[in-house]
């Protein structure tokens, strides 16, 4: 059984069909990339999985459970973490605090315990911190621990956001354009991290990305979208040589 299964998903905004009868599945332990021209509905698919949008039709199954039964905040509890295209960090907090918010789904203490900072809260804080430190080590964020997000450069913010998603200890990681706006070197780092996330941590990755170098470097399978519908699916090489994909990107006659 696949980890994430999406069957016949459809979403319309007024007359615009953003996602049109889309079906695909992501297997446990693979890196699955979604590519497509602007406005193809890639981020919309992510927002559907995050339950920010209510689909018109379709079935969303994660690990055998119906995603549509869940509220948006319960999606994280299932073990789905995500990053955002435009970086959605908590700007007036430190990197450490941002990563600790990633641990929110593991919160066990009650309001009263936290008001009096009971011993259990302290123990839990140590546990959260340990998990966060592992992420900091993994992503080399040590110099930024106590820096405010508002003062950090773009590339670092991108990594912090990845870190926050990893801190939640997910089974499925949704990366919305992890390499957009990054330099060549930073993109290379990102590629190694995605590789390690899959191999060392055993986390399944679903990503939206425009950088075909990165996509063909890390992903096992690629889904090409255009106008909200599936254009092609297969290995990176298969999708890149697919005539329909080339037509969607470059126009008819280019192939």
């Amino acid at each position, binding site marked *: 059984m696949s980890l994430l299964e999406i069957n016949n998903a459809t979403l319309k905004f007024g007359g615009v069909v953003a996602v049109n009868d889309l079906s695909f599945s992501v297997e446990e332990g693979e890196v699955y990339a979604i590519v497509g021209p602007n406005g193809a509905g890639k981020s919309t698919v992510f*927002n559907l999985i*995050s339950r*920010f949008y209510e689909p018109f039709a379709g079935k969303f199954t994660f690990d055998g459970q119906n995603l549509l039964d869940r*509220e*948006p*905040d*319960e*999606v*994280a*509890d299932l073990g789905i*973490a*995500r990053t*955002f*295209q*435009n*970086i*959605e*960090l*908590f*700007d*007036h*907090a430190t990197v*450490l*605090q941002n990563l*600790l*918010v*990633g*641990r*929110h*789904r593991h*919160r066990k*203490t009650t*309001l009263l315990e*936290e*008001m*009096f*900072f009971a011993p259990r*809260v*302290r123990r*839990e*804080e*140590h546990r*959260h*911190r*340990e998990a966060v*430190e592992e992420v900091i080590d993994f992503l080399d964020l040590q110099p930024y621990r106590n820096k405010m997000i*508002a*003062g950090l450069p*773009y590339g670092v*913010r991108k990594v912090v956001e990845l870190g*926050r998603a990893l801190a*939640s200890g997910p089974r499925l990681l949704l990366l919305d354009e992890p390499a957009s706006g990054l330099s060549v070197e930073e993109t290379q780092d990102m590629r190694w991290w995605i590789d390690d996330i899959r191999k060392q941590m055993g986390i399944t990755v679903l990503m939206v990305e425009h950088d075909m170098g990165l996509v063909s470097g890390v992903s096992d399978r690629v889904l090409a979208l255009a106008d909200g519908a599936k254009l092609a699916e297969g290995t990176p090489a298969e999708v890149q040589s697919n005539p329909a994909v080339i037509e969607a990107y470059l126009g008819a006659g280019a192939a």
Partner: protein
Amino acid sequence: MRIHFKTSYEHDIRLFQDRWTLGVYAALLALAFALPYLIDEFYLGEVTNVLIWAIAGLGLMLLTGQTGQASLGHAAFLAVGCYTNTILIEQGLPFVIAFPLAGVITGVIGTIVAIPALRLHGIYLAIATIALSILADDIIVLMEPWTGGVSGKFPEMITIFGFEIERWTMPSRFYYLVLVVTICCTLFYRNLLRSPLGRAFAAVRDSEVSATAMGVHIARTKATAFGLSCMITGWAGALMGYYAGTFNNETFSIVISITLLMMIVIGGLGSIHGAFFGAVVVAFLPQALSILKDGLVGGGVAIPGLETGVFGMILILFILFEPMGIYGRWLKIRIWLELFPFARKDMFRRQKSYLKTERLR
């Protein structure tokens, strides 16, 4: 500049970063406890007033500074706390039970009121909460049998296990009571900040979308913030009742709500220090103005609207030149001193922030 060499996670969790900070706050606490022996009764009363305002400020700070939800309705919750405490004591409950309970009841009422109001954002929430301030007046008049309506109420003398406390005849005892409540509220606030709930508050303030994606239930978190905020405000209200000695439907007017909000903006949004700095300004400004006026134009001359005008001016100046409030300015001065002579002129210039996704709101 002090460099911290951190050797355990505890370093980031404990209340005071180092021995120096601990020493400073211990000295401050010692000074606070010794104050009745150092200054006369009039000024002790003024300091008590500052502390009461600071408690109310902490309440609103938790909601506005920490969770990012503006409220112009907190005068209503001051009233709820004040009346609840007085009524509970009249029913024969001892102060040690009635006073905490008054805060809890205010918190529960706050949460119930918050649930519909929290669907609103920013300025709309502020406008909706104005209604609370205005309604409170009428509700107090309508509930005359309990509240005494327009003629108001007098709080009874506080007795804690036979130990009597009264604001006018024993100002130092009342001061100690207020001081203890202030310390408790500050500790609650601090503890929340270093635990998951406090971080969830900040998450809701900075980005609701990604807070949701991290598993934070937005509505529940906001309602919790509202409840906690109202609880602290309720305690402040009860103490205000004792401080004033008498109160009626007009005591907790919308002006108090606005003053509260201005207070935390002037003090510095999002910090405990801000609530205290703001309280000092709010409580001392009227006194300072009247002393200044007497010196300049002589006593007995009334200048209508002087206080409000000056307050408004201060607020405008702060928003223009120091949006981080007094606490922000204090931090800058401290860093300048720590780095001397290496501080650069543009060190605190604000960076342009990157685009944020607003589409999902």
